[in-house]
């Protein structure tokens, strides 16, 4: 195992694959005004929030300091360590030079942390004590290159001091090289101190040489020191360029403000030149010094993002901004101020609802992505929940009422739940009655709750049919309120031609939650009308695929390792991650799309600072908490084809799997990939795989706790990991059949099926009829791995998938 730190929840390697290890710096009363204010007010929850914010912004370790004049460092620091250890997922760095404090913290910290720091200032007395503590408790240690003469300024002095410390720590105390992080000190080059003109050069040299001459140790810098004295916008850029230079010479870790680092790609070449001239003290034959040139160049630069210090703003604006930015932090304070001035209902209708409307508009323009919309909705929810006790009962009854349900036999609800979140946080009263709801129940509930509108959802083709067929039922029951229909299998044309005519009030197709929101607004404005079919001169969708195919009948039939079924329950979840389609996850499920209003660099930064850390945390969490329990029920069976049917033999049974055939050339049908009886028969392979029901339970818990953003994240993750399991298991089966040659090189290779044969999921375009599941379940008995069928043949839990596998080299995806 690589040298790592750990919290209660996860391990973090010190040597990151993509350096540096990011250590959040803001939990320090000497560096952050906000943290200082919380600490002085004994607001430890406020302190924790700052730490959680750093974690959310990408910090991999959190530096915690409580040293402040007039306060009891020991009491403060142990309290802080205690609450952070519980709630923070990332490991911590104990920032103290007081050995008693360090010891007290080491005793209570449930993991492996870093001690910041030791040095040789007092000749080694404290160093001895702290090294003994580090050895006893197994902590890592930051060592500053300070000796009895003071701070080491030149690279030579830095290396020499480091070596002395190394000899003591490793030689005398038995620590290992990888337990040490040397900090060769960073001095500011931004204050014009003549003695510090080459300070950056000395530091960078120090890093390079320490890595070379003391093999196995790590290096660290307190980065922001480099730019002390410069204006904020310039600091951010200089810090970022300096960080890049330091990593180039071997820096492993950096203590920084996690939210304030820019990737080099986001810094113009011109800006970089000014930064490097300053760092390397290059006169360049100019009249002005590198510092003056730097200051002149950045003088007009304004810092893009604010600190959230919204004290100067009117509370009305501040609240609006909190909603739009999805920032729940401290929102109650603003609400409390507003409650003194306005009745709560006014706050909702005049400030909160318009703010959410603005969020919707930004989404529509492509300027805000879905996960951020959900964070706004969370802030909205928190605000309304806070205001609710202050509102009259009758106030809460206002608003158009909507009934939401997933139709009979269908278990899918992510779309419906997103509609719930969006509508209820835009002032509508939503009654979400869940999944697999029969029409009779919908009618009864609609009457009982006296709703103004019904919204129905369903994923598969079967659900679209259910919706179509239940329209006359709603009409006969005397319902006359509009019905909104949503679901991946629906199209506007289908709704217009098959649903609208059989119901007496408008039936409206909604492509997503935002379309549903628009429909509600149209309804309130009295202009909601039924969906109409597109004019016929619009072309039908293309049908991709080669048009001329002759299936080779002479392909050899592989010999499977066994005939019959097997159940596998010990699949290692970590093995699935390489098969996860990250593009589909990030863009498709999570909604982190690159719209026309964002550049490639902005999108790359979003990936780096937000999305990739989120994904990494989810994977770690999933493994730690055992949320993934991948299992497979699979088998190989003798078979033969006849026309459009594949006859599968299992014991004494013969099951007829009939597949649809394309109407237009090349008239493909899955049955074509299997030899007929005359040709000698073939082998058909099947699987049903699942990642278990634990993750579904956790996903549901998040939704019920109004953790909308995390709900979307976990749901999307579970769907893509299920697909990854299908990909992984299909590969295992290719291996067992002896047809797995080279693995595809990357995800694109898997997506484009760069392997022999194909798998076809029941319910998907090449075999849309789910009734085949009855036979499949007889063949594979997936109940033993926890998978069952609804009355419309959908699998439960949702995170399960099935397939028939063809080994024929010409078999690839197609649609009928």
């Amino acid at each position, binding site marked *: 195992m690589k040298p790592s730190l750990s919290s209660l929840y996860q391990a973090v390697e010190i040597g990151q694959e993509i350096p540096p290890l990011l250590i959040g710096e803001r939990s320090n009363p000497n560096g952050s005004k906000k943290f200082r204010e919380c600490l002085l007010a004994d607001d430890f929850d406020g302190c924790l929030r700052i730490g959680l914010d750093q974690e959310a912004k990408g910090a991999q370790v959190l530096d915690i300091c409580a040293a402040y004049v007039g306060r009891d460092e020991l009491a403060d620091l142990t309290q802080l360590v205690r609450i952070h250890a519980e709630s923070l997922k990332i490991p911590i760095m104990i920032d103290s030079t007081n050995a008693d404090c360090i010891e007290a913290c080491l005793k209570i910290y449930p993991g492996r942390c870093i001690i910041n720091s030791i040095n040789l200032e007092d000749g080694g007395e404290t160093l001895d004590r702290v090294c003994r503590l580090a050895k006893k408790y197994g902590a890592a240690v930051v060592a500053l290159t300070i000796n009895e003469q003071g701070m080491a300024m030149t690279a030579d002095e830095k290396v020499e001091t480091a070596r002395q410390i190394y000899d003591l720590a490793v030689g005398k105390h038995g620590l290992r090289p990888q337990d040490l992080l040397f900090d060769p000190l960073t001095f500011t080059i931004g204050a014009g101190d003549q003695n510090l003109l080459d300070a950056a050069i000395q530091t960078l040299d120090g890093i390079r040489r320490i890595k070379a001459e003391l093999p196995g140790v790590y290096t660290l810098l307190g980065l922001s020191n480099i730019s002390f004295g410069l204006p904020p916008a310039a600091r951010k850029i200089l810090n970022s360029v300096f960080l890049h230079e330091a990593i180039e010479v071997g820096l492993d870790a950096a203590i920084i403000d996690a939210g304030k680092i820019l990737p080099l790609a986001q810094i113009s070449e011109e800006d970089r030149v000014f930064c490097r001239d300053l760092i390397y003290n290059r006169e360049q034959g100019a009249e002005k010094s590198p510092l003056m040139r730097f200051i002149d160049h950045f003088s007009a630069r304004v810092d893009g993002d604010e600190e959230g210090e919204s004290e100067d703003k009117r509370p009305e604006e501040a609240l609006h901004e909190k909603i739009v930015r999805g920032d729940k932090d401290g929102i109650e304070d603003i609400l409390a101020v507003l409650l003194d001035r306005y009745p709560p209902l006014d706050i909702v209708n005049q400030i909160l609802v318009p703010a959410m409307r603005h969020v919707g508009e930004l989404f529509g323009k492509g300027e805000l992505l879905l996960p951020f919309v959900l964070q706004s909705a969370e802030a909205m929810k928190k605000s309304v929940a806070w205001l609710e006790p202050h509102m009259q009962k009758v106030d809460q009854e206002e608003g158009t009422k909507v009934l939401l349900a997933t139709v009979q036999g269908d278990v899918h609800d992510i779309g419906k739940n997103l509609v719930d979140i969006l509508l209820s946080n835009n002032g509508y009263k939503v009654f979400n009655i869940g999944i697999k709801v029969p029409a009779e129940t919908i009618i009864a509930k609609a009457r009982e709750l006296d709703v103004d509108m019904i919204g129905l959802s369903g994923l598969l083709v079967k659900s679209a049919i259910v919706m179509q067929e239940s329209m006359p039922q709603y009409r006969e029951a005397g319902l006359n309120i509009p019905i909104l229909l949503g679901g991946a299998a629906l199209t506007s044309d289908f709704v217009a031609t098959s649903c609208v005519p059989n119901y007496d009030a408008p039936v409206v197709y909604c492509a997503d939650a935002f379309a549903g929101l628009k429909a509600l607004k149209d309804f309130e404005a009295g202009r909601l009308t039924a969906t109409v079919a597109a004019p016929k001169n619009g072309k039908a969708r*293309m049908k*991709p*695929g080669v048009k001329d195919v002759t299936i080779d009948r002479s392909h050899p039939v592989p010999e499977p390792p066994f005939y019959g079924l097997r159940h596998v329950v010990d699949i290692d979840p970590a093995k699935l991650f390489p098969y996860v389609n990250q593009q589909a996850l990030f863009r498709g499920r999570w909604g982190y*799309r690159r719209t026309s209003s964002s550049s490639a660099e902005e999108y790359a930064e979003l990936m780096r600072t937000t999305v990739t850390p989120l994904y990494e945390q989810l994977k770690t969490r999933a493994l730690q908490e055992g949320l993934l329990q991948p299992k497979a029920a699979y088998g190989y069976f003798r078979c033969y084809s006849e026309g459009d049917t594949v006859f599968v033999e299992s014991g004494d049974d013969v099951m007829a799997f009939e597949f649809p055939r394309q109407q237009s050339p090349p008239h493909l049908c899955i049955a074509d990939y299997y030899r007929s009886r005359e040709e000698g028969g073939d082998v058909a392979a099947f699987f049903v795989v699942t990642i278990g029901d634990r993750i579904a339970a956790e996903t549901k818990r998040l939704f019920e706790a109004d953790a909308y953003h995390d709900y979307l994240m976990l749901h999307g993750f579970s769907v893509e990991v299920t697909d990854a399991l299908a990909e992984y298991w299909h590969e295992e089966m290719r291996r067992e059949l002896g047809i797995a040659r080279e693995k595809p090189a990357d995800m694109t290779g898997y*997506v484009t099926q760069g392997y022999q044969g194909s798998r076809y999921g029941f319910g998907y375009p090449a075999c849309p009829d789910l009734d085949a599941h009855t036979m499949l379940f007889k063949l594979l008995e997936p109940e033993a791995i926890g998978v069952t069928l609804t009355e419309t043949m959908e699998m439960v839990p949702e995170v399960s998938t099935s397939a028939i596998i063809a080994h024929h080299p010409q078999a690839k995806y197609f649609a009928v």
Partner: protein
Amino acid sequence: MRYICANCGYIYDPAQGDPMNDIPPGTAFADLPDNWVCPLCYADKDTFDPLD
């Protein structure tokens, strides 16, 4: 400029075109017909993001 399908990750590369849909090499994404779909998962043009 290449485009990526947000649903399945398929990448449309104008240099290659899209033989599955009879689109010749050299066709820019913007010039693909409105009824063009992803050759792998059949998602429509709106589901694609710019990549480069």
